[in-house]
């Protein structure tokens, strides 16, 4: 009876390795490493050029820590603003049916495509002291946004929000909507369904969006300097400090950039896998 022969032939010889440690296919590994190299190599270039000897002295310069703190504060606040407004917007784009939805989705990308300086000008045109809304805000509430720390947050939020909206919309579209149906049959309205079912299911997408948003806000320069000006301690974030350093001293600019990078990489590397993994 030939059975045993054929079945034996069908069983491949096992390799000496264990589960969880499965080989990564070369076709994936090679481009992935290439991509990683491409992203990280320029950083090495910067590191190679960094004036290591003068580093301690530069770091202790008074303006640097202030700018760094301001950067982290404003980027975090901007991310909060983006999450608060952006997640509902993403939900609207992914779940509600309305005419012109495709146009709205495309409009969301406007701040991405707009050169940031022009974005800053546009913000000035709207929220500036002579702007469409700004004038009213000023006379009614005595509220001026440009050239204030709030203005920095606003500029960063404007530039960074599309990242959040689009990443979260992608996650929402990828999610299984049948859980939302199940929630509805249990008496959950759309709002409760959103908070109790939809949101927890797309946590990885929101985390990804928030990371993008935060990092983009942290690196934001053009819109900020245009809308909020470049006042040390008030609106001068690290990228603005880097810009000024570039005027005089390339190496100083590199050092400042590296400081910003190190801090942000350290913070992002501290994020637990747990927070960005779906249940």
């Amino acid at each position, binding site marked *: 009876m030939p059975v045993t022969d054929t079945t034996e032939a069908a069983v491949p010889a096992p390799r000496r390795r264990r589960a969880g440690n499965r080989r990564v296919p070369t076709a994936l590994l090679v481009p992935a490493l290439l991509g990683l190299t491409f992203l990280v190599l320029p950083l090495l270039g910067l590191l190679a050029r960094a004036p290591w000897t003068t580093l301690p002295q530069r770091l202790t310069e008074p303006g640097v820590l202030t700018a760094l703190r301001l950067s982290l504060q404003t980027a975090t606040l901007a991310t909060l603003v983006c999450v608060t407004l952006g997640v509902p917007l993403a939900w609207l784009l992914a779940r509600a049916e309305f005419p012109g939805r495709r146009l709205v989705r495309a409009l969301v990308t406007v701040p991405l495509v707009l050169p940031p300086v022009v974005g800053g000008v546009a913000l000035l045109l709207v929220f500036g002291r002579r702007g469409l809304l700004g004038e009213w805000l000023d006379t009614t509430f005595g509220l001026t946004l440009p050239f204030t720390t709030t203005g920095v947050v606003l500029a960063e939020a404007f530039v960074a929000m599309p990242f959040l909206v689009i990443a979260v919309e992608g996650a929402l579209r990828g999610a299984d909507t049948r859980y939302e149906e199940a929630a*509805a049959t249990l008496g959950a309205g759309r709002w409760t369904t959103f908070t109790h*079912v939809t949101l927890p299911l797309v946590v990885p997408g929101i985390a990804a969006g928030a990371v993008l948003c935060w990092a983009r806000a942290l690196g934001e320069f053009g819109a900020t300097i245009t809308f909020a000006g470049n006042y040390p301690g008030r609106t001068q974030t690290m990228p603005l400090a880097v810009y000024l350093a570039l005027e005089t001293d390339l190496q100083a600019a590199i050092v400042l950039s590296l400081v910003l990078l190190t801090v942000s990489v350290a913070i992002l590397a501290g994020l637990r896998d747990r927070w960005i993994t779906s249940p």
Partner: protein
Amino acid sequence: MDHQSVTEPLLDAHLVAGRGAFHLDVHLHIDVGEVVALLGPNGAGKTTALRALAGLDPLAAGHLTLAGVDLDRPDHRRWTPPERRPIGVVFQDYLLFPHLSTLDNVAFGPRRRGADRRTARAHAHTWLTRVGLAEQARRRPRQLSGGQAQRVALARALAVDPTLLLLDEPLAALDARTRLDTRAELQRHLGDHRGATLLVTHDPLDALVLADRLVIIEHGRVVQEGDAATITAQPRTDYVARLVGLNLHRGHGDGHSVRVGDLTLTAADRVDGDAFVAFAPSAVALHATRPDGSPRNTWPAVIVGVQRHGDNLRVQLGGPVTAAADITPAAAAHLRLAPGQAVWAAVKAAETRAYPVG
């Protein structure tokens, strides 16, 4: 019981809905406290009907009235969203929330219906205990076995005590013993339940034990409806006949004779015009040669297949009429059954029932 509830069923629905090329068109009525089993072959439209009742898909036409209130009536442009319907659903694929613990899954409904956190959890705990899963309360759905997940889904739907309860194969994944227990628990609950229940199942036993009335749909249409006794005695389609385990044929009656194809069968009942004849596989006897004893209905048949069936063997017969016969292993050994073999089949007229079509 007040007047209205006597004359009007709690649920009065005419469901017309489409899913792709499939069209559903069924009338459903369920009284207060009544349990109706919805049966039908795979793809008959049972889940589609449940989705329409729950409000997950809107009706294309018809109406859906629960306790006198129109929940869906397209021609009046009325529609109530699922979360505002007093309806509970057990889904065929459970759909437990993957991010919530078992306990919070069950507490989800009570919370939404206004219970505070502690009350909802206590209530959920009671229900988990009833379905025997109190120990798994802290687990995530991914950490449950299939049968455990199904019981959680059942507890989740029952915990809200809805006016209309929709159960889509709520016991399919349970092991024989848990099935008995859960079925008993469900029976107890449904006995107390003052709303209406619609139970989709493929298990005739579930239907017989739990339901007061059976509605059978095929291809999106109701093909038979009634209490278990009637349906068991007088199946009207092949599906129902198989479900209740009878051989069914359609023919033309003339007194006690019913002509089925080339064969004339004699039945216990009188019937004239288009008629069904039904007989149990166990009523069919097989003989190597033409029998000349009492059975009035005999015909030459060919054995198509043989399967074990409980303690007996079930023999599939071809010939002028296709039929199944249950015989003991001893009889089988005597006959030396094998596919392709020719035999004589015999059924007593007393065991052959006839009833009119339509």
